[in-house]
């Protein structure tokens, strides 16, 4: 089963939840950090990252001798990555989405595949579990292609057990890409106006995917009751509530995994894990 831990608003506790679940997951699981812009899961699970591989996207390279400046590549490119100026073809590799259209339409065979570095895929082991994370190169604008590289490994990972994904914040393309493969989505929120607003956005964004979803209310005694009222009105189960406490904030600030550092929370996260497992299993039985 594939489980994604997501949120609309950043900083609500995705990585806290994901690391806490990882520490008490009691069957084989691959831990995957898909928040490639700012991956943080490794800071808490402290995997030994012994395999670091650069990831690239294919971008066109022009052969001036063969190019007749016909403009077919420029015309198909939807991303303004190719232009023809004064009879010379100019490629802007950082704008390229790697669709391969220009290479496919060039009648002169004047374009060949080159590459742009997207970032790294880092692999290792954390507490005996395989660990994989993407780390976007600073300056690279596009995170979905790097995420896609990792997502393509999901079928292989699934054969070995569960997959637990730490997703990026927000509700735009990277966030959707991170939860698309999941059998169950956990939405982490906090009961503040910002937390509630972004929770609604995330719920609306993910609902069309038709996957079972449940909420984790972090810093549960801050703020107001609007998150809980919304959950109850929309049949969104609240699978765990994590209290607000300075002890938890301090443990997090030291890089501790809170389900291990703070005894009563182990049970909270075990309950969350069992709820996630039950709905994912139920979904699989229906399919």
């Amino acid at each position, binding site marked *: 089963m594939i489980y994604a831990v997501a949120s609309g608003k950043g900083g609500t506790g995705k990585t806290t939840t994901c690391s806490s679940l990882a520490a008490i997951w009691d069957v084989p699981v691959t831990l995957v950090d898909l928040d490639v*812009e700012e991956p943080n899961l490794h800071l808490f699970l402290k995997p030994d990252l012994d395999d670091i591989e650069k990831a690239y996207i294919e971008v066109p390279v022009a052969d001036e001798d063969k190019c007749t400046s016909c403009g077919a590549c420029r015309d198909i490119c*939807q991303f303004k990555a190719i232009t023809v100026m004064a009879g010379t073809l100019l490629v802007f590799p950082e704008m390229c989405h790697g669709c391969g259209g220009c290479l496919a339409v060039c009648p002169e065979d004047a374009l060949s595949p080159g590459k742009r570095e997207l970032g790294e895929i880092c692999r290792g082991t954390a507490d005996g579990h395989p660990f994989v994370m993407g780390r976007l190169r600073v300056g690279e604008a596009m995170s979905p292609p790097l995420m896609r590289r990792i997502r393509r490994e999901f079928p292989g990972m699934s054969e070995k057990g569960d997959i637990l994904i730490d997703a990026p914040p927000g*509700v*735009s393309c990277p966030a959707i890409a991170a939860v698309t493969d999941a059998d169950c989505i956990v939405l982490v929120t906090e009961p*503040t106006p910002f937390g509630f607003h972004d929770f609604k956005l995330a719920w609306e964004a993910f609902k069309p995917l038709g996957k079972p979803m449940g909420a984790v209310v972090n810093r549960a005694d801050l703020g107001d009751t609007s998150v809980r009222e919304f959950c109850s009105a929309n049949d969104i189960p609240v699978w765990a509530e994590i209290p607000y406490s300075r002890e938890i904030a301090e443990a997090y*600030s030291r890089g501790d995994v809170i389900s291990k550092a703070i005894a009563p929370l182990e049970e909270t996260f075990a309950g969350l894990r069992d709820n996630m497992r039950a709905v994912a299993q139920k979904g699989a039985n229906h399919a």
Partner: protein
Amino acid sequence: MREIVIISGKGGAGKTSVTGAFAHLAENAILCDLDVDAPDLHLLLDPEHRAENEFWSGFEAVIDQDVCTGCGNCMEVCRFDAITETDGRYEVNPLQCEGCKVCVTLCPAEAIEFPQKHCGDWYVSSTRFGPMVHAQLYPGEENSGRLVTELKQKAREIAEEQGLDLVLCDGAPGIGCPVISSMAGTDLAVAVTEPTPSGLHDLKRVAELCEGFRTKVAVLVNKWDINPAMTGEIEDYCRSRGYTLVGRFPHDRAVVDAMLERKVITEYDDGPLAETLKQAWADVAALAKSIKK
């Protein structure tokens, strides 16, 4: 005219609460929410929309089932895993479609349409602290970078028209497309961080991005008292990189209490937190003014 963007790398560090207070303290500024994906500044500023605009950007492939011959060429050429096949019926998953037009161009039956997408809406509004430009991207959409660029452009135009001398922007988390777009033309990036392993890790990456744009970086440490040792480590790091430290804020429930009343901290509270914010704003404003164009 000067442009300041509040960023953080890590989400939830306090960008919007800080931006709200700065909006209150700034004089002669236009406000701009560049977190078009999950905007929150409007929750504090309660903007009244003066103009609403649709944001159309990019295209998506749609297969006309009456014309499709089921050859499967589209699925083969798509690099984005956006085309699925069920019992010989090919369909485009709009959430995966990149809008690259490759399948459209290469379809032998010319069965794929390519309509433009309405990706969100943007607004020009007025607030108690001055004019505001903001947006809401629809869920799952891309092109957030283009929308950020449009918003900043509009904010500059309004500032020009109304004789305002500051564009104050709330940025997005992360270091990707919308954050990169928000850097263009920015004089000063104020990075809000917290003394946690994630806070420091993410600050380093976003500040490196700013350096790549030669944008000056100022740093605020929020909730500094949660881990004074880590705060010291962050401040040492900032000094070593030449980033200006403009303040450390204590962990204070007043941040959430103010938010619940839809007020910014400096309107809600006149305690030490508000004082620290006022001093930080004075430093940020002076720093922005001192930057040579």
